[in-house]
């Protein structure tokens, strides 16, 4: 990074995720690009696993075990610092072993502690396998986001996706993050969405979103576009009344506190260049209202961000891809975006 000394780079810890998945090799691939990353990257995982995965993929990488308190060497392509966590059982690419569910949780615990003690500025999570963790003796496990929420003792977190390009490649303003879409509800059956969308929930989510856009993105007065729930945003109450009864009153209340909120807008007109160009973030009411657009519309690569935590956490936007694991064909693009976003957020949050 021109004009930036190594020491000023935020330290970003990557949890390498499910050992049988693509997480370890994506981290190794990223280490090959270490010199051009806007962060000092340190991996959390089993050093022997990373070494053997590197060998089998013919990646010439120096794995350097170190401790969270240690200084990191200057970023260099082909060198990866690792905070060691030991596998519970040997891991074969592509083959899940529930015995390693506890290992994955150990990597998360180490990352959370390092962030909270200031040894890392941010954490980035490679994909884990929910089923393997549940089968490994953690039946209550529901995912990264909930685990972090509970570990940090907060009530509400918000899932937000961000991309590295604006719609159709058009840059606007801050080039690090041209489109951000946050979700008011996440992994819910569609039939449960309307009931879950209460005024209280919407208010909490909007406060977290507004607060973290200021805190972690350096936006003084974030402009947020809010989707309606119903077709045509309810069209004056003819196609559903949640806009009138829940969304509008909540937006009005928060506007009196100075939040810059536009909406509720029909989702199918909001997600067009004319509207997106005016926004720092979009709040979608449900998963498939907000996320599919990031996948097919040419926004470049995306990554997930968890807002509302006392630490910075981003993650890749894909799963463990067991069928690709060990083959070296997986694309580290989303991990790179996740690391860049984490570094940006950490810098703003300093």
């Amino acid at each position: 990074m021109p004009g930036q000394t190594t020491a000023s780079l935020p330290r970003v810890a990557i949890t390498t995720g499910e050992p049988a998945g693509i997480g370890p090799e994506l981290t190794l691939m990223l280490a090959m690009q270490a010199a051009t990353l806007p962060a000092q990257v340190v991996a959390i995982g089993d050093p022997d696993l990373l070494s053997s995965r590197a060998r089998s993929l013919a990646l010439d990488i120096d794995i350097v075990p170190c401790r969270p308190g240690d200084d990191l060497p200057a970023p260099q392509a082909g060198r990866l610092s690792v905070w060691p966590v030991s596998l519970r059982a040997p891991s074969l690419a592509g083959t899940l072993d529930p015995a390693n569910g506890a290992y994955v949780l150990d990597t998360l615990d180490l990352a959370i502690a390092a962030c909270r003690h200031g040894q890392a500025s941010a954490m980035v999570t490679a994909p884990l396998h929910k089923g393997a963790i549940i089968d490994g003796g953690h039946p209550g496990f529901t995912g990264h986001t909930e685990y972090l929420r509970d570990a940090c003792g907060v009530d509400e977190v918000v899932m937000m996706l961000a991309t590295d390009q604006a719609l159709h490649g058009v840059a606007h303003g801050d080039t690090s993050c041209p489109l951000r879409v946050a979700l008011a509800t996440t992994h819910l059956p569609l039939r449960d969405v309307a009931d879950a969308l209460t005024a209280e929930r919407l208010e909490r989510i909007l406060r977290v979103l507004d607060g973290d856009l200021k805190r972690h993105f350096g936006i003084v007065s974030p402009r947020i576009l809010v989707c309606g729930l119903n077709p045509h945003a309810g069209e004056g109450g003819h196609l559903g009344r949640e806009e009138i009864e829940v969304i509008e009153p909540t937006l009005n209340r928060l506007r009196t506190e100075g939040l810059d909120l536009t909406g509720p807008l029909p989702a199918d007109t909001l997600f067009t260049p004319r509207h997106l160009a005016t926004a720092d973030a979009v709040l979608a009411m449900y998963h498939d209202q907000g996320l599919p657009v990031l996948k097919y519309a040419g926004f470049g690569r995306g990554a997930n961000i968890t807002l509302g935590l006392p630490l910075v956490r981003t993650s890749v936007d894909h799963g463990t891809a067991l069928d690709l694991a060990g083959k070296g064909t997986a694309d580290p693009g989303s991990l790179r975006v996740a690391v860049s976003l984490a570094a940006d957020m950490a810098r703003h949050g300093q």
Partner: protein
Amino acid sequence: MSQAQPCIALTLGDPAGIGPELVAKLLEQRDVVGKANIVVVGDRWVWEEGQRVAGIHHEIPEISSLAEARDQTGPVLLPTSTIKPEDVEYARINGLCGTSVLEVLKLCMDGASAGQVDAICFAPLNKLSMKQGGLKHEDELHFFVDHLKVETPVCEFNTLGNLWTSRISSHIPLAEAASHVTSERILSATQLIHDALIAAGIEQPRIGVAALNPHAGEGGTCGREEIDIIAPAIDACRDAGYAAQGPFPADTIFRRARDGEFDGVVTMYHDQGQIALKLMGFERGVTVQGGLPIPITTPAHGTAFDIAGKGRANVEAMRHAFDIACRMGRHHASR
């Protein structure tokens, strides 16, 4: 001659929106006039106002009944008397505008039913104005169904380029969308889009069916409609001879469609398809009213009140709506 040159009724849409301007701009395109016998149906002053906003002036002759439309050599105007200039203000929801729109559409449907025109292409209308102006139905499609006394299944198709979409529910609250997912509706939407694609010249339409829930229900952990209803319905579609596949999650089905894997996509609720289509090309989308005895098309966009009366409306979607009306009208006339 009617087989070679369809007769198209073109309406001006809501007078408070961009419709009249779009029709003026459409007729300005030279190759449009040669594609069909065009009859503009609407109040003369609305037509003149549309031309003024568009900065265009066409002298087109008047006819006194749709029965005369087919005999004309160039575009003609069938003047109506539905609304007064002093009752219209741009960009306002207005029941009088809604009534005007409904009257013109009835006139066109009656003409089409009588075989006087082969298809209808209507400029954008405003549903709220129509409801205030007497529309009793959930949307214009059901108004058409009622007026044309259709008793078989109907479906609104949205098209973008070569991709057509149908949906099993439309203008209903999202809270009710899941209860509308039934095997019958999926089969019917698949059948309707299959037939329409055949009519549009696609010999063996490939149809993708969307899932309802995030990640297609994640094996039943995030909703069971995929397992209990949608997958069995797709099997039934295949048994009936339609090349249907799915259910595919919302975030991948349109990527695959965009890459040319499907000719048609069946979606489970309004915004699932609309967000995707509008994002992929809002200005070019067209809505086709499927399952009616006569072809009816319209641009997918609305009255665009924010730019109404300003001369800045983009005519591209109106042009595509007109082109599809011509194609389907020709097919209709040749039956």
